[in-house]
Structure formats: structure tokens, C-alpha cells
């Protein structure tokens, strides 16, 4: 889960998983339910197989059914922070448990300096200070996760919003066919690249 905070690590982990999958000779196509994910997917290479990805900013575009729905939510309220059952699982999202998570990260790094650990936790709060809305997105009706998101909103003094999930993009990724408007097919020997227009993703020769 922490890989999503570090796009370089995410890229390396995905590449390594792909390389392993490609060793299975029967595999022809690998579906990646990822989007740009902070550019963590940029540079991921297809070897022998073709890769298919939804054109998405990240999983939120997938859960909402399209990048356009994702963009519309942020346009209406740029202070929206998205929660989903998977994202909540690590208990590291902004909310009542984040401080404990951060202490566990930082205390071993600064064992002789509790003051610095406190400063880092305060700085972390600053990172999220510009947000004001916890938006819960779910395709599974996970009531425990939804209730946790409501706790987070209360803890932070943010508004709470439930956004309706739309499984169409994920379903169509799994079933195909993959129309070029909504999906990127990366041919063997090519890599995922950024496409700054509305297409978001492109394939480039490596």
C-alpha cells in the first residue's frame, strides 16, 4: 500500500510482477487495473505480452467509472480527499489513526529526538490542511470502511460525502473489448508513457 506514496517504488514493484507473469508462457495479455498513479506507471515495460490499462488518473477514476467523473468532483471541490476501502485498509489515511502510523514510521528514524518526531507529525498535518472534504468511493458497499471514512471526516472537521461508484470501466477492462478512447493497449516491447491531453496514457517504443 505504501508503494502508492512512492511512484518510483511502485513502478519497480509492478515491473517485477509483470516480469514474473511473463515467464508463464501461456500468458498473452496482462490487465493492469491502474492509471497514471502519480506517474508510478510511466515507464512500465511490456516484454513479450501486451498490457492493457484503463485511461485513468488513478484508482479513483476507475471506481468512479471515468477520469471525467473524477475530474468533475475535483473541479467542484478542489479540497476533496478520496477514501476507498483499499486505501483505508492501511489506517494511514488522514484521520484518527494517522498519527500512530507516523509515529511508528518516524520514531525508529529519530530515536533520540522526540521533538523532531512531533515536528514531523505537525508538518504532516500541514500537508492535508488544504483539504476539507472526505469523499468515500466504493464498489462493494463496505459499511465498515464507509463508517471509518465518516470517523475520519469527524476527526478532521471535514465535510463527508459518499460518491456513487460505477463499475463499468473496471468491468470492461476485465471483459474487453478495449476501445482506444477508454483503454491503452501497450504492445509487446513498448512502455507506458504520459499523454498530457485528455488521453492521459500513451504507449512508447522502448
Amino acid at each position, binding site marked *: 500500500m505504501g508503494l502508492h506514496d*512512492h511512484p518510483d517504488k511502485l513502478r519497480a514493484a509492478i515491473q517485477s510482477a509483470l516480469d514474473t507473469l511473463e515467464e508463464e508462457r501461456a500468458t498473452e495479455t496482462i490487465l493492469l487495473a491502474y492509471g497514471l498513479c*502519480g506517474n508510478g506507471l510511466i515507464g512500465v515495460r511490456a516484454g513479450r505480452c501486451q498490457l492493457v490499462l484503463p485511461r485513468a488518473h488513478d484508482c479513483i477514476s476507475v471506481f468512479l467509472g471515468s*477520469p471525467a467523473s473524477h475530474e468533475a468532483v475535483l473541479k467542484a471541490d*478542489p*479540497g476533496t480527499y478520496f477514501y476507498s476501502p483499499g486505501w483505508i485498509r492501511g489506517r494511514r489515511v488522514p484521520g484518527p489513526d494517522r498519527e500512530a502510523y507516523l509515529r511508528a*514510521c518516524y520514531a525508529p528514524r529519530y530515536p533520540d529526538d522526540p521533538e523532531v518526531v512531533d*515536528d*514531523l507529525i505537525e508538518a504532516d498535518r*500541514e500537508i492535508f490542511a488544504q483539504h476539507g472534504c472526505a469523499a468515500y468511493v466504493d464498489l462493494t458497499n463496505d459499511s465498515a470502511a464507509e463508517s471509518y471514512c465518516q470517523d475520519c471526516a469527524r476527526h478532521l472537521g471535514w465535510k463527508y460525502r459518499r460518491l456513487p461508484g460505477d463499475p463499468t470501466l473496471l468491468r470492461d477492462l476485465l471483459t474487453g473489448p478495449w476501445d482506444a478512447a477508454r483503454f491503452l493497449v501497450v504492445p509487446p516491447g513498448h512502455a507506458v508513457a504520459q499523454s498530457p491531453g485528455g488521453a*492521459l496514457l500513451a504507449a512508447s517504443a522502448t
Partner: protein
Amino acid sequence: MKTILASLAVAVETGKRNDAKNLTQSLVDKGMAPLDIVEQGLVPGMSAIGNKFKKNEVFVPEMLIAARAMKECMILLEPLLAKAGIKPKHTVVIGTVQGDLHDIGKNLVSMMLKGANFGVIDLGANVDPSKFAAAAKEHGASLIALSALLTTTMPAMKTTVDAIRASDMAKLKIMIGGAPISQEYADQIGADGYSADAASAVDLALSLVGETH
């Protein structure tokens, strides 16, 4: 004084703002020129933590506490810089583009530009595209710097560049940066430069205004 400067750089790098303030004050008391303190103590400290961040060795909060330490030292030094007649040679207008509220990267770049003796007009975050050219005109800026954190707000960067190019400040240099931004994107939207981090943003800014670093 070299030892104190080295300790100051370490205090900034590790975000120990009280130590950094005390060391800055002691260098001032010893008669060191404020600009030398900035260039040889504060900026190297920020560059060091910036390099660690680039290598994924530290996280954003560690960058933030370092920036806060540098900021507190700058509060001590800015009046002395002004008194010493050190005036910014160039002014830059900086802001995060419309729809994007994230200001951490933009604040770090602002701080490093101030450290390099730029005058910085900070328009904040979620800035209307028309405001950049207007502020540049008002303050006689020679450079505009745009930031975006999200892939969802990257299109606003293009809108902003287009608005500047369509204004009477069309010839101003524009530099861009932010997590999803690349040189390729800068070329595509007609920005004059891209930098990957706050330290290289200073080198880029200097070269865009015709100064060699």
C-alpha cells in the same frame, strides 16, 4: 566561522529550527555578511535534504521542517539583507495553478528562489490563469513559475501558459514543475523550462533570466 556554517547547514537539513536560528544569530554577531549566511549555510542545508528527498531517503514532512527552519532564519536575515542594500535583481511571480490547492512544492521553490536573491511574488494556490500576467506586470517580474501536483490539474497549466502568452506579458519566461510534470510536457505546452526539484528550479530560474549560476 566555517564550522558554524556547516552546523547551520546541518541544523536546516534536519529541521532543528531553534538551533538554526541560534547559529544564524551567532554568525550575524560575528559579523558575517547576511548573504553569505544564506548562500553558504541555509541553501546548502536545503539542497542536502532536497537530494535525500529525490533519492527517496526522506519524506515530505522532513522537507517541510527543513523549510520551516530556513524560513525562521530568513526572518532574521531579511531586514539585514535590506539594510546591506542587497536588492533582488530579478522578480518571479509564482503560484499553483487553478483547481490545485497543493502548495508545498511551490513554497519550497519560493524559499530557494528567495535564498538565491530573487524577489518572490507568491500568488498562493488555486490561482486564476489571468492573475499571473497581471501580477508580473504590476511587480515588473521577469519570470513566472507554475506548480501543479495532480494529473487532474495539469491541463490548467496549459490554460495558464496560454493566458500568459495571449496577454501583453507574452514574452515573459515561464517555468513549470510539480510531481506529474516532465520536460516533454513543458515543451508541449510552450513553457520555457521545467525543473524536477526546488534546487534545480533555482538553476533554471537563473538561466532563464540570463544569469549564470
